């Protein structure tokens, strides 16, 4: 039983507001990814949960117990620091064994768990080295191994795979997922890699300027963003937004008929891949500025109805800069936002 309840936590650094009343429940064994632009307060939130930073207001519960005033050591968690914080004066082995030693585990136990964590993160060859002699990615893996080795009830990870190559990251992601699921570890995971968030998380919490603006299942966040910000932030390319003025629950964009859920100045949101390319007179008009072959697909950047739009086309499509096309978004995957507030108009999920 080690869910995390973050209740209206606020944090000011001097005058600056870093966290503005953040509330988030992470159920026992759940994996929540924190996603948000650089500087939005992810690290700060993690540090407050860990007890490394004093909160200005609010409370943090772990496993139902109010830990707001507990020392980090007593909160029963482990953490991967954004800048690793591996102990320079200990070998990799001692680094990984650190948490276990603090728990006074028997020797063989430590040995075994360290080896397992090291194997998982492929740092076995370096167990006797000092961190100064490791590459950046190796150091980062030491930091992750150190946190995994203690098999904590609650695990906080701050961009733990940011310095790994794609392949390794993919592997690590899979390993993490199975290890954490098996151990039923409650995890709060900061990442800027959306695929990582999508692939790993039970839920994704999107932060913006010190606030959590949406916390939902990955697919929901992806396809039903709670605001233009989320839509624009999650997914690559980001969700496209085209200005539409509706009256009588109906609007027209070039050759396209739409049925918005409200009237007034709206934004039509759609994903670049949720769109059909049609002849120019059969959808909204899209003028291609750049066509980038991206291997698995062709990325078209251009504009429609005066708004920048990016569209994913099959790699085989023959589209060139300057072409005019028609776009026909999948009506089931359209998101409607208010132009004023930027918030989604229908309250799904």
């Amino acid at each position, binding site marked *: 039983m080690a869910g995390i309840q973050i209740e209206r936590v606020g944090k000011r650094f001097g005058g600056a507001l870093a966290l503005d009343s953040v509330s988030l429940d992470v159920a026992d064994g759940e994996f929540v990814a924190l996603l948000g632009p650089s500087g939005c307060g992810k690290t700060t939130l993690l540090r407050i949960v860990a*007890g*490394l*930073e*004093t909160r200005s207001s609010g409370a943090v519960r772990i496993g139902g117990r109010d830990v707001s*005033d507990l020392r*980090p050591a007593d909160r029963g968690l482990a953490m991967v620091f954004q800048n690793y914080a591996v102990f320079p004066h200990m070998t990799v082995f001692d680094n990984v064994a650190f948490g276990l030693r603090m728990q006074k585990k028997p020797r063989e136990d430590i040995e075994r768990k360290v080896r397992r964590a090291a194997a998982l993160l492929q740092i076995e060859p370096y167990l006797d080295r000092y961190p100064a002699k490791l590459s950046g990615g190796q150091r980062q893996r030491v930091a992750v191994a150190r946190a995994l080795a203690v098999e904590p009830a609650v695990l906080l990870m701050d961009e733990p795979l940011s310095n790994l190559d794609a392949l390794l990251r993919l592997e690590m992601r899979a390993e993490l997922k199975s290890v954490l699921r098996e151990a039923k570890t409650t995890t709060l995971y900061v990442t800027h890699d959306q695929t990582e968030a999508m692939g790993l998380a039970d839920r994704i919490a999107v932060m913006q300027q010190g606030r959590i603006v949406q916390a939902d299942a990955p697919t929901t966040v992806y396809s039903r963003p709670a605001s233009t910000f989320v839509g624009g932030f999650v997914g690559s390319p980001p969700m496209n937004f085209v200005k539409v003025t509706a009256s009588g629950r109906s609007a027209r964009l070039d050759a396209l008929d739409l049925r918005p859920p409200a009237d007034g100045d709206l934004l039509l949101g759609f994903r670049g891949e949720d769109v059909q390319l049609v002849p120019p007179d059969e959808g909204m008009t899209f003028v291609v500025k750049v066509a980038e072959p991206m291997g698995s697909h062709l990325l078209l950047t251009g504009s429609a109805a005066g708004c920048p739009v990016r569209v994913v086309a099959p790699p085989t499509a023959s589209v060139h800069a300057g072409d005019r096309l028609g776009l026909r978004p999948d009506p089931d995957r359209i998101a409607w936002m208010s132009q004023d507030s930027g918030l989604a108009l229908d309250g799904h999920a």
Partner: protein
Amino acid sequence: MTAPRWIPYALIAPAALFLAALFIVPLVQTILLSFDGGGTPDHLANYRKMAGDLNFTLAIRNTFLLVGVVVPIQLALAMGMAVMLQKMSTGRDIVLWIWTIPLGVSDLAAGLVWLALLQNSGYLNTVLFQLGLLDGPTPWLNAETPVTLFVGIVLAEIWRATAVVLIVLVAGFQLIPKEYSEAAEVFGARSWTAFRLITLPLLKPSIQSALILRTVLAFEVFAVVYALGGRNMPVLVGEAYAWQYENQNYGVAAAYAVLVMVISLAATVVYLYALRTRPETQP
């Protein structure tokens, strides 16, 4: 994490209590003694006597001159040595060891060896003599040769006490990640500039400690000065000793001691202020 307010106090308490238990009573007694008029209400009698003494102004001048010359040279020298040690790839612990040997040399031995070097029939003169620059023993260390005397004392002090600064700086250097000066070099800083702009500021806390330490000690110097210069170079603490022991006047000695203390503390306050570091600028 929330730091309970009492923690720092608990941490300094042992040291504070220890010093208080050991020193406060004697210290206060001595300070009071310096203001004791010997039954008369003239509480500044001792200070007047001190200020009126033949050697007072000389001692003040000499002490400040000595501190003013020795401490900066020592800091610069120790800094140079510490940098050399940083750059050394092999044998640096042995070199450091050699450079710190003078730490283990007592005042007496240091005075002795420098006297043996610089006196009339000393080693320096022997060398000069053998080079044909001198025709016999020549005095360098008396009132008639104040400049060489001063230089001699400065050399001896530098020899004897630079190592203290050195070990503090060497220890400080260990904590500066190499990456900062590397970055500076990549961005076009020459060694000296990188040193000035990166290493020095990051080393500031250690420099501060070393300077305070060295200055306080330098204000208390006298053994070597007296070994080389005899009565030609009165210095403050030497005068305090003389009043305490030769002249058996504890009041005036206490006045001198209070003066030395005030000067040292003033210097310390200056260092603390001038070399303060904002916590957020630490790595």
